[in-house]
């Protein structure tokens, strides 16, 4: 089960839910199930970076998610 933590911006689309838990094997499955639950998340997921157990992915796609994985959505950073 992957534990997902949403950013403040995403919580508006999730109706205030900050966390959720899903049985998924990879990030693609996770995004599909999230969009099924909260369609308003689709664009926000596209715009977000994600941290999987602390490792930040600017463009996650099909990264495997081990059981007990913690997934954080966060704004993308680039820098100067």
């Amino acid at each position: 089960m992957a534990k997902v933590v949403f950013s403040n911006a995403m919580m508006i689309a999730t109706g205030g839910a900050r966390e959720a838990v899903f049985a998924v094997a990879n990030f693609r499955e996770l995004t599909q199930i999230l969009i099924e639950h909260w369609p308003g998340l689709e664009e926000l997921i596209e715009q977000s970076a994600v941290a999987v157990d602390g490792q930040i992915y600017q463009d996650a796609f099909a990264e495997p998610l081990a059981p007990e994985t913690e997934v954080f959505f966060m704004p993308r950073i680039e820098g100067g």
Partner: protein
Amino acid sequence: MAEALDYKQIGTTPVRPDGFDKVTGRAQFGADVNLPNMLHGKVLRSPHAHARIKSVDVSGALAMPGVYAAISGADFPGGRLEGEAGGEGGGSMNDVAKNVMARNKVLYHGHAVAAVAASTVRLAEQALQAIKVEYEVLEPVLDVVEAMDPQAILVNEDNYTALPEKPEKPSNIANVGRLERGNLEEGFMAADVVIEREFTCPMAHQGYIEPHACVASIDERGRGTVWCSTQGHFEHRAATSKMLGKNMADLKFVATEIGGGFGGKTVVYLEPLATMMSEKSGRPVKMTMSREEVFRATGPSSATVARVKVGVRKDGTITAAQSWIAFEAGAFAGAPYMPGAMSIYAPYAIENFLVETFDVLVNKPKVAAYRAPGAPQAMHAFECALDEAAQLLNMDPIDLRMVNAADEGTQAPYGPKYPPIGFKACLQAAKKHPNYLKPVPDGAGRGVAVGFWFNVGMQSSAEVNINENGSVMIIEGSPDIGGSRASMCLMAAETLGIEYDDVRAQVGDTESTGFCNVTGGSRTTFATGMAVTQACEAVIADCKRRAAMTWGLDEDQVEWEDGQAVPGPGVNADVKPLSLAELARKAGKTGGPITARASLNAQGAGAAFSVNFGDLRVDRETGKVDVLSFTAIQDAGRAIHPAYVEGQMQGGAVQGIGWALNEEYIFDDNGVLENAGFLDYRIPVASDLPMIDTEIVEVPNPSHPFGVRGVGEAPIVAPLAVCANAVSRSLDMRITDLPMSPPRLLDAIEG
């Protein structure tokens, strides 16, 4: 990952490959490119900070002999452009296009209104005078807090705050950021001291010495080449082709040598204009900004107003933190409001916090990235508040930070748990540094502050070609600003097991190598270095295959040691090792040239933390500040080229000191910049500064083959608060407004 002691190349400090050409004047920068029949382009800029354009007539310019092209906003394709520009706060491509050339409104003094291309620079300047523009002058919006008022004059009548529900009315607030955790009220109740102050930071220029410059040569088919000074030629190509409605395959972009960028050259200004005028005239067009144009019309950092409240217990524990920060975006949305929110508390484990940030339009140049965009302003405010708390608690400021320091497993304020990080190691190094153990000089104050930057990976490509004699040629696509070609050569030499002198690196143009994102975000040594390393590993695999073929062994019976193929342990083969040079000489017989490439989207960039401290003294009669000593300590993960890591740390420290002490954009009441040049915009020079002492801490990033973290951005973050804290302690009064220039300090001293 190999241990540091095993490395033969990494950690050495050879002279950078471009160094000789740069010190002898041979290096070709943007303005050094010249072509036969080349025209010179110039831009007509708005004399108003805010005005509606009623008409633009370029016919007078076009009628002049020697003028071959004249353009205005009407010449650009219509319709809304989708997508975002590269670089932090690059903004929407639609806004970037309107920044390159104004359409119905000018939004800052210096905004481009028209451009001409003529046979000489002087003729081009004369032609600008023949362009007629009618304006309806509007009142400018210049103060960020006033701009946030719902009744404020609007910079852009179509700007609505980006919220889930579209607001009923437009506003100058483009975006809002918010991060929170815990219970603020309970946190502040638990505090023994509470500090609450307002801080300001000015707009500051990145201080790159080379002005923006480019040459475009477009043929009658609309195809051609653009040479430009850029941090990212692939993204400049994308932006230029998009706003001109061209197929990007029709444009080749060549990154010239670059005389500094620091984020300011992630943005296009001239390239679309030169490309359009070259296509219209059928001749190459060169455009070079004057220093004044750089100041008036390119992107500086955001000015900010930050209100910070922090509660601390007697033992130093931060019980609660609350911040409100307004970032000036300039004329278009895209201030680094989110990085500011995400960085302000990043070094600490805080249970209760809230940070709200705002991206606010004003009639000033659109801001651009500047090293660690958003972090210096945000962390200046919080680090000053923490220093005041340490003073009130009579606590060493490093000790206070150690009490709260984030470590591996700490949940970062912006979300995830940290992997291994080096913040505590930096604090420990600072506490025992000889400079910290010295007494504070008489009359001076010692300031301590910390810095942070996320660092990023993003997309990079690299090719590695083995020459016939076994020497190595790397082609990659990251413009080299800080010595990255030397770092690429070191990582390739280390991976291949050969000498640094046998490796060369070249930054390829957009037709010579695969896509690379901008050189920014402290990503090049990390991400492009990872691509180079992977390509070298592919070369090794190929060499092992060729050696196996030569020896009649299976591939898995061959290993690679010290730059040569050898039979693996237990393999009974009476053969001599085959070096890279020997394999290259025989490549024709084993499959042809040895070459490999790698393209990746690098993940797992490791965050960088720094701790800085310095002793500063204020002359109470003149308000002048002397920096007596300054020490910068930073976790680099692994320093591939330690001298260039130190250079990044020293350069960032100097820029931060300049921002703290003297640098600021000064606008008059009409929004006209009054100090558009390095005479009146005072960056520090060598005689202003002591040697910046450095100490590199190495807590390897487990996501990189050599442990690299980015190093380029974090160095600018801490110096603002170091200087403010040192000056505040020396004067025994809190100085909250930057820069701490002599007149401002005299005002404070005289009450």
